[in-house]
């Protein structure tokens, strides 16, 4: 009796939350969405992309312009991105968003990160530092756990040094992800290595961190004040 009730409630809550999130901050579900996020968000607020509705021809022209400005995409990726944009952000009403049937896993949320940090968290110097190994060191250092959350939530801009290598990329904040998704991805990173007694990140912790919006430069300032590796 109680179980189906809870399940219905959970599904309802999830759809409502999904609807709210979709209508405000992120893109409609569909094949290629994660690739679009990974490729566009470094430079653009995602709302900028999400509110466009243009013909395939004009999206194509915009992609050409972005390539000219330095966007790195393979021809295959470009085709997927164009299909997604023309279908879901085109001039026709977009198809109903695909149902988010099962809860996301940290690995799925990590798709947002791998465009820059690599599928295995290997990094891509000199712009994008490795995560595998480095996150573990961060979590072991004083203030590292809090810093990691802030960097993922609000982004990071400016030069940092990791194991003797300088990194000077720009990381966008991922505040548009839900508290749950952020907790998932942070725990996914921690699963690559974390100190003994590591307490998993919780959505409440993410929610609390949102209370004070920070700029990517302010996160850098916080980083510099901490003894972080």
């Amino acid at each position: 009796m109680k179980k189906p009730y809870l399940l219905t409630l959970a599904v309802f809550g999830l759809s409502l939350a999904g609807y709210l999130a979709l209508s405000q901050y992120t893109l409609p579900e569909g094949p290629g969405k994660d690739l679009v996020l990974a490729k566009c968000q470094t430079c653009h607020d995602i709302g900028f992309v999400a509110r466009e509705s243009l013909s395939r021809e004009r999206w194509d022209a915009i992609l050409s312009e972005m390539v000219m400005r330095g966007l790195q995409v393979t021809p295959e990726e470009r085709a997927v991105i164009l299909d997604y944009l023309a279908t879901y952000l085109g001039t026709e009403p977009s198809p109903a968003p695909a149902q988010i049937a099962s809860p996301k896993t940290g690995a799925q949320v990590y798709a947002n990160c791998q465009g820059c940090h690599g599928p295995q968290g290997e990094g891509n110097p000199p712009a994008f530092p490795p995560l595998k190994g480095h996150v573990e060191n961060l979590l072991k250092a004083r203030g590292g756990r809090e810093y990691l959350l802030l960097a993922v939530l609000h982004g990071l801009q400016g030069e940092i040094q990791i194991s003797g290598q300088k990194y000077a990329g720009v990381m966008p904040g991922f505040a548009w992800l839900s508290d749950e998704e952020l907790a998932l991805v942070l725990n996914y990173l921690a699963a690559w290595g974390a100190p003994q007694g590591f307490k998993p990140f919780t959505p409440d912790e993410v929610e609390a961190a949102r209370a004070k919006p920070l700029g990517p430069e302010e996160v850098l300032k916080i980083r510099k004040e901490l003894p972080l590796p």
Partner: protein
Amino acid sequence: MEKVNRRTTLKLMGMGAALLVTGGRSLAQQAPTADQLVKGKNPKLIVLSQRPIVLETPYDLLASNPERTSKEILYIRNNVDLPGYNTVEGTSLDGWQVEVGGLVDKPFTFEAKELLSLPQHEVTMVLQCSGNGRSLYQPRTSGNPWKRGGVGNVTFRGIRLKDLLSARGVKLGDKAYFITAHASRQGNAPEFVRSVPIQALENALLALSMNGEPLPAVHGGPVRLVFPGYFEVNNVKWVEKIEFTEAENTTAEQMPRYRVPAIPNTHLPFLPQEPGKTYPYGFQNSRPNWLVTLNSFIFAPLEGQTVEGPYVRIEGVAFNDGIVPIVSVEVSTNGGRTWHQAELERKEKSFGWVRWRATVYLRPGEREVMARAWDAAGRSQPIDGNIAWNERGYEYSGVMRVKFTVA
């Protein structure tokens, strides 16, 4: 190094999944307001983009400050965000260096501080994003959906670039046809470069202050290269290099961005592009958004307002590129069939906007008013702004219409 074992991993991931199912209550996040993004801005500004920062002035705020647009409400269209510069406070001149080179006999570098010892010059001008009014084009064009609030009237104070050149005894080369300015790239900021025709040197200003206060960091402080009469994109913020060049710069901000279609070698105001289609932008078949297009705005009554009749005061501003004076503003209350002359505040050449007003007789009911400006070069505004449709939605100058109620 203590690794988390597989079981812990699974536990962590499972816990996350469970949290996702039970949570979800805070998925709709609070978007930051303008004052959270840029210190000192009015929180009512409309956030069009958080990265880079793009803020639009709500039209009623613009209209209620018809003399001067203060730094608190002035719109922002940044292509580049310099780390630490998101504030309306000024920023230190110390150590800010600007390089002057290209086709000059003696290239030099000056310190922003040195400018304080040269004669200062002041200009009041319209600062307008070339995408202002973009959302009025049909079908919709790409880019930030500006309504009409991507504009302001501000006073810059600084040193004329030509005065600086002559103080240094610098001569331009014969082929110096363009002024090309580069914004600072500090904090790993992306490249931002714009070129304007050499004629712009006549009024070019190295601005250090705006509206009598230090130039706000977010608006280009400490030094901004300002070209009165030109669209905002040409007024390079945080300038760190000025070159005199034979050709337009070839970076993305000069082509294909910030251009409209044009028939090569003609002086036609614009070549209409078929609405909804793409255009093969090239240096020959398009021109940059340089000179501000003639335009007028109605500041009162505002859309949807109820006003006392039957005599209704219509007010607004008009502006152009400052090359010739605005000679007339007309107001129509019957959809453009007949027009009344409005009274102009002044009829001199001006880079700033000119205020105008008219009193019309209107019976009670739903009414619509239109305004149209003319300048001494015979230029005016299209009744249907869409005839200048271009795929990026630049330079909208269609006649403004306002619907309101007469009580």
